[in-house]
């Protein structure tokens, strides 16, 4: 039993830190730390920087352009990025589609699409969820009917994150209506510029435009864009969902949020003392700090098991639940710390703090909006209720 990282791993950490110091643009890390919304340009820039270093597709096999990292290195990289204010990688192409193509795609698909993911030539979004389906992903209603060399796609997808930036979407479509729910589904790659594809923004409660609905009306998709076999799509979809979950606890993000919270709690005063010395607030902070300290080790235990050849499986449900609870609690505390200044909502301040003097402490600008925005953490990616079902079935045997 040894909680220390090896000298090699520590050296790797230093390498990552140096890279981040040198290459992560201050403009971007400043926005991330301030909880501001990133532009497409911000995200493209960061993608290009990572790709130049060969660290973009960091869990892909070396032969496809990955750096050959193990779970521990991946963890160190994710954590250091979060601490330095690196943007979250948009996962749809590199973390979701990539592994599916590598495992199930044919040679032509691999050689065509994978380099375009690396280069950023394609911006992928996800066509999984449908209206009224929620966590029941297998109830796919969007249809694809084979006509000669094409599929004709009709239907609707929703919760398509950052679809407004995407030129490509991977979709679950129903190719056999007679089959049972999880059969008869296929995995299809669709060019968003094909006639009949229409994207409509969904505005979230914080006023943000991050997710979208995507409508398909008689969209012609070449059969070459079918991944794997027809009607076997659910297998690929499940693989995609269980793949690569060591980062799911979001420990790096939480550590960064705790640091931010501590700075705020030292600065904001209540009754003549910093909030950090207010008994109730301090207790809330200490509780989540301890929970996070424990979670760090829980997360490392799962990673060590994976690195040792184990399979994360249902343990990732545990990390997802508690990890998101901790993140949400930290965002709640940042909101609480703002007192009355949580109320003001200045639209511009969600993107930049260059414009005007802030209303209240500068952290107040995004505190409430982020709190509300990140309620999504316990809903998306398999709601925490679904994760508990998984734990009950897979770990507890109930």
């Amino acid at each position: 039993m040894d909680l220390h990282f090896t000298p090699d791993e520590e050296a790797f950490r230093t390498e990552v830190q140096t890279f981040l110091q040198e290459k992560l643009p201050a403009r971007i890390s400043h926005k991330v730390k301030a909880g501001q919304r990133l532009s497409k340009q911000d995200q493209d820039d960061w993608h290009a920087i990572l790709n130049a270093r060969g660290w973009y597709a960091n869990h892909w096999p070396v032969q496809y352009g990955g750096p050959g990292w193990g779970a521990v290195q991946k963890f160190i990289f994710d954590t250091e990025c979060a601490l330095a204010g690196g943007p979250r990688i948009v996962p749809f192409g590199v973390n979701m589609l990539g592994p599916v193509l590598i495992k199930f795609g044919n040679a032509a698909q691999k050689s065509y699409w994978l380099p375009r993911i690396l280069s950023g030539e394609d911006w992928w979004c996800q066509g999984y969820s449908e209206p009224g389906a929620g966590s029941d992903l297998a109830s796919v209603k969007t249809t694809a009917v084979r006509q000669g060399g094409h599929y004709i796609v009709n239907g609707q997808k929703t919760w398509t994150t950052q679809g407004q930036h995407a030129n490509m979407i991977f979709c679950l479509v129903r190719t056999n209506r007679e089959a049972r729910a999880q059969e008869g589904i296929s995995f299809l790659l669709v060019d968003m510029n094909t006639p009949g594809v229409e994207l409509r923004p969904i505005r979230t409660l914080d006023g943000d435009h991050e997710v979208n609905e995507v409508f398909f009306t008689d969209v012609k998709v070449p059969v070459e864009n079918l991944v794997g076999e027809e009607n076997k799509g659910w297998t690929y979809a499940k693989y995609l969902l269980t793949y690569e979950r060591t980062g799911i606890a979001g420990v790096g993000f939480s550590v960064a949020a705790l640091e931010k919270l501590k700075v705020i709690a030292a600065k904001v005063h209540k009754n003549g003392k910093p909030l950090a010395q207010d008994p109730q607030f301090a207790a809330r902070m200490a509780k989540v700090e301890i929970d996070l300290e424990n979670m760090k080790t829980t997360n490392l235990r799962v990673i060590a098991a994976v690195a040792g050849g184990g399979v994360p499986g249902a343990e990732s449900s545990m990390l997802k639940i508690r990890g998101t609870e901790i993140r949400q609690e930290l965002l709640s505390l940042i909101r609480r710390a703002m007192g009355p200044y949580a109320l003001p909502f200045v639209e511009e301040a969600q993107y930049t703090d260059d414009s005007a003097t802030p209303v209240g402490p500068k952290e107040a600008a995004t505190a409430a909006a982020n709190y509300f925005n990140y309620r999504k953490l316990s809903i998306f990616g398999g709601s925490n209720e679904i994760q508990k079902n998984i734990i009950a079935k897979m770990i507890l045997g109930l």
Partner: protein
Amino acid sequence: MNFEHTEDRRMLADTLHRFVTEQYGIETRNTVAYGETGHSPALWQQFAELGAIGALFPEADGGFGGAGFDIAVVFEALGQGLVVEPFLGALMVGQALVAAGTAAQKAHLASLMGGSTVAALAHDEPGSHYQLAYVTTQAIANDKGWLLTGQKAVVLFGDQADLLLVSARTSGAVDSEAGISLFLVPGNAVGLACRGYGRMDGGRAAEITLSNVQVGADALLGAPNQGMALLERAVGYGILALCAEALGAMDVAKKSTLEYLQTRKQFGKPIGSFQALQHRMADVLIEVEQARSAVINAAAAIDEDDRIQRERALSAAKYTLGRIGTLVAQESIQLHGGIGMTWELPLSHYAKRLVMIDHQLGDEDHHLARFMALGQSL
């Protein structure tokens, strides 16, 4: 012991409910709430005509109500409709006038109740963080009356207000309970600068800077240096109002979530048939009923003379509604799933309001601490 409202109050509640449902639907509400002025002068006027503002004040002062339960009934109905009109400012400033106003000062009450005046309590300051006695704004007596200088934070509808009730320090240390005085200041006073902005949950607020604002001697409300008690009284009414509003809002959030659970299907059955969700909704129900009781306790206590009893009940209620409001908001969103996070669904605006109410006039931590401190003197 009787938990039925009087016939008058029930009629008022019904009238308000009908008006809000018909005239203040969520689309109208959102257009108004997130618009330029953050409220609708026309609708505000109509609320006045319905008697909704007058119901907040006693008959002796031209109103037709003013008891704790009148205020609770009105704000509960407003909460159900997410009404963003400047009721809270009217209530707090108006009750301060009722309690301490000279005849001339009380003249404001008529225009308040008539809906032609928007009033705002300008009390919070950038460093106050809910601490009532924290006042750095200075008022210096001169031969024309008083000269006010300082900064006021997150003043609700401060950029729209015709009449501001401004707290200022006339003696004592920055956070001393003694030495606070209250002044009636016109919204268009010379030297008063306003930075208005929209609020997260709709409506507007403003940062107000007072730079040598000259007001007459008659601007002083109540005795000089003795403003703390009056302020506490006015804020007490505000607390009751916010609690009742939160109750109204959480009833709707609960109802909307229940309907969703009953109709939304997943894995082939209504998600409301899943026992884990049923038990969570049962918890929500119990909490909402406890919140309802807290509002009743606060409404009954507001007319109580014993300060400790009264303020403890108010802090107990604000703590309760803050805690439960946040819980109901979070559970409602979570049980709705993604759709609960969309701007389009009314629920999301109820959730925002519920959470934001905890940031007005003291959050749950503040009022728990206050409840304990008041208890020490028992």
